[in-house]
């Protein structure tokens, strides 16, 4: 079985009086260790698809297996546990907790795991070192630049060593240099640590980092040939 497997997934939601169907009978298979990029116009359902894979939203029907778990059959409590162990989520905005330091933000996922204080410290230190922010550990988010905040968010996403990273426009709010740094970091995590990455982006330059690229439009998912970006 593929690491990520979607079979005839349909998702609808209400927007005012209208029913919107961002995903209609979508099927997809992604092997472990892939760096997949989801492209498509705004409102095409990219983020919806990513949220389903990351178990923070539920499909209306279809089959959805990720990392060996049948997400369609799990309770919300079980999904929360599953997310803690299997998914690192990188948002467009860093969504760091403003009252916690960079160190404490990175430590947050580890409070959900049966680890000693020393183990937590070791993991947080390694994660911060991986994103090159050891010297910013005691800074609050407001004391960091946008790029640094996003790197802290990546450290938070990888600190529990989940097999899957999902990233929703991770470079959308960053300048060129910061965006390059973040994308290079994701490349390394994919190549060196074997993380499966699912990234939503509008940025063609970011899309070039993907080993597989998909486009989603009007509820239809299509894989692009290597080198093709639209």
């Amino acid at each position: 079985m593929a690491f990520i497997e979607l079979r005839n997934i349909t998702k609808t939601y209400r927007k005012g009086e209208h029913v919107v169907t961002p995903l209609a009978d979508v099927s997809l298979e992604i092997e472990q260790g892939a760096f997949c990029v989801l492209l498509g116009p705004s409102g095409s359902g990219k983020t919806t698809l990513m949220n389903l894979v990351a178990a923070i939203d539920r499909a209306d029907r279809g089959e959805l297996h990720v990392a060996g778990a049948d997400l369609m059959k799990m309770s919300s409590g079980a999904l929360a546990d599953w997310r803690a162990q299997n998914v690192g989520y990188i948002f467009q905005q860093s969504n760091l907790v403003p009252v916690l330091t960079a160190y404490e933000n990175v430590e947050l996922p580890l409070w959900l795991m049966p680890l000693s204080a020393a183990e937590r410290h070791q993991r947080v230190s390694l994660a911060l070192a991986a994103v090159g922010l050891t010297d910013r550990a005691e800074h609050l988010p407001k004391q960091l630049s946008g790029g640094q905040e996003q790197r802290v968010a990546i450290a938070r996403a990888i600190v529990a060593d989940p097999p899957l990273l999902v990233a929703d426009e991770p470079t959308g709010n960053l300048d060129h240099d910061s965006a390059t740094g973040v994308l290079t970091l994701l490349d390394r995590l994919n190549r060196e640590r074997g993380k499966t990455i699912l990234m939503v982006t509008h940025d063609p330059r970011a899309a070039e980092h993907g080993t597989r690229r998909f486009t989603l439009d009007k509820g239809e998912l299509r894989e692009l040939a290597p080198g093709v970006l639209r």
Partner: protein
Amino acid sequence: MARALPFDYALRNLGRRPLRTLLTALSSALVAALLVATTAFVRGLDTTFSGAAQADTAILLSSVAERDVVRSTVTAGLSDLVAASVPGIRQIGGAPAISAEIHMGSTLRLGPGPERADEPTYAGFVRGVTDRAFAVHDAVTITSGRPPRTGEVLVGALVGKQFDIDPARLALGQKLRFEGAEFTICGHFAAPGTTLEAEVWTPLAELRGLTKRDDSSAAFVRVETPGDFGDLELFARRRLDLELVVIPTATYYRELSDYFAPIRALAWAMAALIVAGALFGGANTLNAAVQDRLRELAALRAVGYGGFAIVRSLSQESLLIAASGGVLGLALARVFVSGNAVSIAMSAFSLEVDAVSVLVGFAGSLLLGILGTAPAAARVMRMSIAAALKEP
């Protein structure tokens, strides 16, 4: 799996909106202080009457007085009649423990000299007594001076607070005027937790003369066996000419306490209204805090924290505010409530911040903190993570 957010998260969140935190803590303080005051008032009202009750003492009242000691009149010689006719009367100091007394309301004036139209007057409760009163009323202790002789009064510890005057004006040697006569203060007495402390005691014979009465209001009779008033009741039934009714003091003061039940209910109702207002304010504040942090809370859910972990953290925030406000409220109550006297008609009682009122006040503020979390908790539990992550 441990699923709780670190306590530091809840603690530091209190500093994100300092003004809002402060206002919520102050409303919690108000609730705690108010509950302490209400509890002290209700308990004071209860104990002030029950405190004067004694299991071995009954009151002989006129049967036509509808159990009102002020309206009651009994024959002046009743004490001697009871002593001679009823067995089982307790002997104290070689004499039967029977105290004939006049109970009356009067208009009191402070200081010596003739009555002046522009001087303040005070509605007080005057009791005409003999030395036997001290053998019957166990709660009474003379704290300074001595029992009153002709032209003298003994003043209760709460009279000054009831009249809201400088205590120096009721010092030994100061003058009081009522019923057209001038009295010198010869002593003070305490009777903690009873309405006796709000009374002025003067010799019975002199008060009879001043009020042109040849009777008493009632006789307090102490028996050898607590609760056994059978002989006293038999005496009252046999002497129909005296038109007497025997009421154990426990019954008499309980009925007096029951009379004030509507006031107690009103006090609780007012407290409940203010608590409800504070609850609404607290819930609104926490709900606003959740609204402000919707995306952040959704991110925590995405990281793997369940709804209960978030609700628990919000409850910690709410309880921290409520508890600190509660402690402040208890301190305010200690300063502004404790020891104050409450006047009721011509009587008064002291408000005491005791363990029960502290417990009620603090528990009330904590309950406020817990209940105030409910709307925010419901919102977090219902929250769609995906939708909340799109919040601006």
